[in-house]
């Protein structure tokens, strides 16, 4: 007895990205790409550093610029401590001062500052500076803006500058006086950072917690004005033709920021001209982009590192941290992952960030051991501590191919030697949350990330790892380290401060709380029709769009 079959049905056909990739791969194979050779050595890229570029000469109606680290969660300058926010906010909002190309302070909304004694700074505000809505910048706005950052409810990472803060007051209609409780060698730098960015008090108070959101926007004074934010799609800025800085003549009329995080999509978009440029260029796209437009490299204050985020797990054992450090393939990451554009790093702060007392820092740096992979040592350490076989969860940004490759190699080497490193690839929002929320870090023992210094002061970075600091994710505490950093924070003399910082540096490196891997260059790409943009790390806090324009 046989049945009569009904018509067979099948799931509806679905076009998949897989097929597209397979076709793309086949097509690329057929074309025999320009870099079709094999072997890591042949994948090197000759990145020449550039500091001077031809100035922009012709106006440009509008450009599209991509933010490779994803959509900013907010555009409030108080939260401008991650790349995606800073890249946009730096063109809209200004502080009392701004950085020049060598991190020197140049007047912005303050025309000058006097320093009558170690604890007092008196700012004279710029005459005629206005917010985008035409309202003048007042001393009250400045006092409000600086105080607002310190409000614990705002949870601004920039509040950390104020360890020696006593008061800020409007002492005249065009004068603001800052008082400190003790001498602070780093405070000057913050005058050019979001800690001293000025927003309009009336707008900020009216918006409340929504200030900087897609709906409320911001009210600042800078070269570009917030125009629109289509969440998930783009942010649009238009040129502020009433900008006080008449010496700079921004030539780009408007800019649309997009949020493409996939490296392949970024390169395709840049090559096609759909996107005009972006900071942070995928290493895999160097060859194609350098042939297409201007791929520029410059010195940076960036580091690539592993940081402990939880010391209650296996990372709490110094031997486990030591083993993880010895498992890192430094040469492979430098030569293959970053294609020879990265330098091995002995300390958390790269030598490019020695903004003073260079000889002291350099001498200390050279005394540090050159890191190298040592799998025998990993195996030896693993045999000595039972905690090494506990699961160690390492988080990294999956959208970054460099991070994925490095994390994979580190985990494999560690696990082959007996450790139990589990990888957790995260999306850009998930990864960004690690830097903002202790809850987001739950379940992770360490993270692999690219970091950067805001200005060339090693103390500013090492300060993050003192007891109770916002960025001391692991909750590490070392009294000697705290004492050295605390003393350095009150030491105005550069050489003495550098010596203190170098001693603290040796402690944290010995403890492997942060494991430095390589230092990276700053990279920017823009289409061949644009010019004027030098690859400088200061772009996060200076109006870089004002330099860009047509040839």
């Amino acid at each position: 007895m046989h049945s009569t079959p009904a018509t067979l049905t099948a799931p509806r056909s679905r076009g998949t990205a897989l097929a597209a990739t397979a076709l793309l791969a086949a097509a690329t194979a057929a074309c025999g790409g320009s870099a079709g050779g094999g072997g890591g050595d042949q994948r090197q890229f000759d990145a020449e550093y550039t500091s001077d570029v031809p100035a922009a000469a012709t106006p440009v109606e509008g450009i599209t610029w991509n933010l490779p680290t994803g959509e900013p969660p907010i555009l409030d300058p108080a939260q401008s401590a991650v790349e995606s926010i800073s890249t946009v906010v730096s063109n809209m909002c200004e502080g009392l001062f701004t950085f020049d190309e060598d991190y020197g302070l140049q007047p912005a909304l303050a025309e000058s500052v006097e320093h009558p004694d170690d604890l007092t700074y008196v700012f004279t505000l710029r005459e005629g500076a206005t917010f985008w809505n035409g309202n003048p910048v007042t001393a009250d706005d400045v006092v409000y803006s600086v105080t607002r950052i310190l409000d614990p409810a705002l949870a601004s990472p920039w509040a950390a500058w104020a360890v020696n803060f006593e008061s800020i007051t409007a002492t005249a209609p065009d004068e603001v006086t800052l008082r400190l409780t003790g001498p602070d060698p780093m405070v000057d730098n913050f005058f050019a950072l979001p800690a001293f960015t000025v927003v309009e008090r009336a707008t900020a108070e009216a918006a409340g917690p929504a200030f900087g959101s897609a709906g409320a926007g911001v009210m600042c004074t800078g070269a570009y004005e917030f125009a629109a934010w289509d969440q998930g799609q783009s942010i649009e800025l238009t040129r502020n033709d009433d900008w006080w800085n008449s010496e700079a003549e921004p030539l780009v009329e408007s800019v649309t920021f997009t949020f493409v995080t996939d490296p392949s999509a970024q390169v395709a978009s840049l090559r096609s001209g759909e996107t005009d440029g972006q900071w942070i260029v995928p290493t895999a796209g160097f060859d194609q982009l350098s042939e297409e437009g201007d791929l520029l490299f410059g010195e940076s204050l960036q580091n690539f590192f592993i940081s402990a985020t939880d010391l209650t797990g296996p990372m709490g054992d110094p031997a486990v941290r030591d083993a993880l450090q010895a498992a890192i393939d430094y040469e492979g990451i430098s030569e293959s992952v970053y294609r020879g554009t990265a330098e091995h790093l002995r300390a958390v702060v790269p030598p490019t960030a020695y903004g003073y007392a260079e000889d002291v820092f350099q001498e200390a740096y050279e005394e540090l051991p050159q890191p190298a992979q040592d799998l025998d040592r990993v195996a030896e350490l693993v045999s000595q501590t039972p905690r090494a076989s506990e699961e160690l969860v390492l988080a990294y940004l999956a959208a970054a191919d460099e991070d994925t490759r490095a994390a994979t190699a580190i985990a494999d080497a560690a696990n082959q030697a007996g450790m139990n490193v589990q990888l957790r690839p995260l999306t850009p929002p998930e990864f960004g949350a690690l830097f903002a929320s202790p809850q987001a870090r739950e379940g992770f023992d360490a993270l692999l990330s690219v970091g950067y210094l805001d200005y060339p002061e090693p103390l500013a970075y090492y300060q993050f790892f003192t007891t109770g600091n916002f960025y001391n994710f692991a909750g590490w505490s070392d009294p000697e380290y705290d004492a050295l950093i605390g003393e350095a924070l009150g030491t105005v003399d550069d050489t003495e401060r550098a010596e203190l910082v170098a001693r603290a540096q040796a402690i944290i490196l010995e403890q492997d709380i942060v494991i430095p891997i390589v230092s990276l260059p700053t990279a920017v790409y823009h289409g061949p029709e644009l010019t004027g943009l030098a690859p400088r790390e200061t772009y996060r806090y200076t109006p870089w769009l004002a330099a860009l324009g047509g040839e």
Partner: protein
Amino acid sequence: MTLTLPALRTRRGTSRARRRPVAVLLSGGFLVVVAAVAALAPVLAPHSPDATSLLDSFLLPGAPGHLLGTDSTGRDTLSRLMYGARLSLLAPLGVVALATIAGVTLGLLAARGPGWLDVLLSRAMDVVFAFPGLLLAMLAIAVFGRGLTAPMIALAIAYTPFVGRVVRSLALQESARPYVESYQVMGFGRLAVTLRHVLPNLTPVIAAQSALAFGYALIDLATLSFLGLGVRPPQSDWGSMIAQAQPALLQGLPWPAVVPGIAVLLTVVAVNVLGDHLGNSVGRTGERS
């Protein structure tokens, strides 16, 4: 001549109908080889699938010790392909098994149960049928986290109506046949008749339907891995291998993506050829009966 030619044509036609097409034999052989390689991967693979060597990344196929080259972290592509076949085949097999069990159960309940149950189950299957399986799997991943378990269950739910609707339709037709009524008149229970006599008659069609679903499940799961939502690294399946090879394409290095891409392509084609053949065979059998 005039008598011979029709006779020859008839013999050829009969012979073609009886012989298995070459494509079916090739497809079957290919799948057997893939399954054997997957099962014997620990023995056959020349390297550990997770052994990295960054300085040996992107070696071309034919490089010493690496027949199919290496990927972006210097892992042997052939070894990862072999190990990757395990998850790439087992996961869709799990999806199809779950979907088939659920689909057959629901289809038989709808066809052989009370009328209100038929209406209820049919509408429920219509609703699930209208929901894209891939979307359901992504939803499951969003709720339960990355990994294969949640998307496998979600895809199995999405695929259940494909089996269930066919089983219901066939079971209704079967129920109208005299033998079913005869068994019931003889005193056999409804459940016993359904399980012992109706279900076995549906088996060839169910098998054909499942074979087709397997190919689609393989593509769906590979797509999830391609999107970074499937297997957790360093585990590999073919979809994750293609995803990890994307940046290499930018450097003009297609092989790390081409190799697993071809594996997915050939496997899905082979499964579909077998499924089609099975379906056609059932159809021909039905026509003859």
